[in-house]
């Protein structure tokens, strides 16, 4: 496998605590893009806001061959729930565009259209580690690309379906558990170190905790390195991990927002904005508490 380094040129962390009624993102979307988007749903709006913010902050102009990876666990869950209710309870057929927009890759289409991309465009789902999986795939394709300066836009997008009480039920969360929506993105690539904000060191997946700890204890961690725990890692567990490893502390985002499955993207992007010259290891555990994913990056 090619040993090309992956650099991060832009990062944007966006998350919103979910409350009823649902947040109206249209003003923010219009402000970000300077134009109105018609006939799109909330999930697509989230993706467009986060990606544009990332590119606005990026040190590199986006090229038409920039690949796009959109990570999500639940995808267009609000739209899918609406149409399911419409079909089975109200016994009505969906409107054509409402049906079209619930295809998870529509957010990627609108992004590609708005950015005039002609590139690979993948929507990646995962039950516990969607962003880690998409970032891993993007880094793999960059490392093995024949292009001189391969690049990718990698985002984690998650929405809630309303009413939130039902959404908590389907997420198997407590009735009072806080929820969030998120759209956090990294603009990554290889071949241009000069404009990099950070370097993405690795993404790894482990079958169990002993595999994770064994890897981290043998890894040459740059100093100073922080550790961040994902949504399924309790504060106590994070402290225990930190004690086992040579890290300088636990990283918590300045603007903490509650649970969403692509929270990893939010944490990585926040860290890049806050901790120049520092490194981070983000660890998360799957929903059953068995498998682990870890990401490491170093801010330049």
């Amino acid at each position: 496998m090619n040993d090309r380094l992956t650099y991060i040129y832009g990062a944007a962390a966006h998350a919103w605590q979910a409350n009823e009624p649902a947040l109206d993102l249209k003003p923010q979307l219009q402000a970000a893009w300077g134009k109105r988007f018609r006939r799109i749903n909330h999930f697509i709006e989230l993706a467009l806001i986060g990606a544009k913010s990332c590119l606005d902050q990026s040190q590199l102009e986006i090229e038409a061959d920039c690949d796009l990876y959109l990570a999500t666990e639940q995808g267009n869950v609000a739209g899918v729930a609406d149409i399911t209710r419409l079909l089975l309870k109200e016994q009505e057929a969906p409107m054509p565009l409402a049906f079209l927009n619930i295809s998870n890759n529509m957010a990627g289409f609108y992004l590609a259209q708005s950015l005039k991309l002609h590139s690979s465009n993948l929507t990646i789902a995962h039950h516990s580690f969607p962003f880690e999986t998409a970032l891993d795939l993007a880094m793999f394709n960059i490392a093995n690309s024949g292009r001189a300066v391969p690049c990718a836009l990698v985002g984690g997008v998650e929405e809630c379906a309303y009413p939130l009480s039902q959404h908590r039920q389907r997420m198997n969360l407590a009735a009072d558990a806080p929820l969030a929506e998120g759209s956090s993105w990294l603009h990554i690539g290889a071949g241009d170190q000069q404009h990099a904000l950070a370097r993405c060191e690795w993404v790894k997946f482990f079958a169990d905790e002993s595999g994770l700890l064994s890897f981290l204890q043998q890894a040459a961690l740059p100093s100073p390195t922080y550790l961040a725990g994902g949504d399924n890692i309790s504060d106590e567990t994070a402290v225990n991990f930190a004690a086992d490893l040579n890290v300088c502390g636990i990283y918590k985002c300045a603007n903490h927002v509650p649970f969403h499955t692509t929270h990893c993207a939010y944490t990585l992007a926040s860290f890049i904005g806050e901790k120049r010259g520092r490194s981070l290891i983000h660890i998360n555990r799957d929903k059953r508490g068995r498998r682990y994913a870890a990401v490491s990056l170093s801010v330049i």
Partner: protein
Amino acid sequence: MVKNRVFIRGCGVVSAIGTTQQAIALTCHNGIAIPGSTTLPHSCEQPLPYYALPGKTDKISSPDLYKQINIAVDSAIHDAGLTVDEISHLPVFVGSTAGDISDLESHYQHELHHANVDAPPLYRCGFGVLAEYIIDRLQSDGQQFTFNTACSSGANALLMATRMVAAGRIANALVVGVETRNQMSLQGFNTMLLLAAQHCQPFDKDRSGTVLGEGIGAIVISRQKPLSSDFSAARPYYCLGGANLTDSVNITSSDSSKIAAVIAQALTETNLHPADIKVIKAHGTSTPANDSAEAQGMRQLFGDELPPFTSLKPYVGHTLGACGVVESIIMLACLKEHFVPATPGFTTFDETCGCTPLTQRLPFDGGNIMLNHFGFGGNNTSLVIANEP
């Protein structure tokens, strides 16, 4: 960069025309498959043609999604002759549009039937649940990927798995395409006026829409040649790779130039020239706009002397996100029997297409085969598989 050859080591499929490669090849050899029908609830329209899995009732949502996945996956693993150790590290790549929506619909229907009108429409959510299910059932510690790119989902799963095996990152991969009958897809395609009232007739002048179908396909790809399997053991097939590119202009029907571009990119990625392609398995949905764009795109790239091409949707219907895997398996089952299947339903030349698919099966003695898949959201993927020389 070290490039490994990526062999197709085993396949398993559950489709409207059978669950064995032999049965599928026999139907395709005969060149005819008649769809069943399905009635859209709350609709006064006539029943629509539909390619249901064998033995299925007219229930609008398939209640046995996981059982069908098990059949396809177990069959592929058996066919590949994977060892217990290989299975325990097997990465899983799933491509699907609807995921487990058929199961979710069945559950919600059950709740409504029992007067639980406040039940949530989806009792759980997450598009990665099928990959998680397969990994758990196999007790594999391999990585899992799920691709949701509309009708190119399965093709993208196969493409990315191929790249990882070729690069030496993984030794084997299980690629699964899943699409089972659900009301959402049927009603959605119907409301978009994309469904044919009677027949699936790819590239025919009188084509009027596609016919949906359900299917689950599983392919094991590997750095290792098939050994114990009877699947083309003498002259194994292998995946060369391909390309995925987005047409960011047209949301439901790609422009022909974008189709030509993804085919050209696939040829570049596989170090092939147009003349190296012996046969094309077209996407061939039988919708007026898609088929003419695809035909024009192929002609832009290959010229008017197109390689022989066929569409498999008249045999199993359009299996949406699964078609990249299901149709690859059908094609391989036929190639193994040394023929390329014809395109049933084609009778009348269409000038907007300007080309004619195979109307008779074609003898096949090896070479490079292109497999094209195009999805909503302009998501276009072109793959190439080949025979061992």
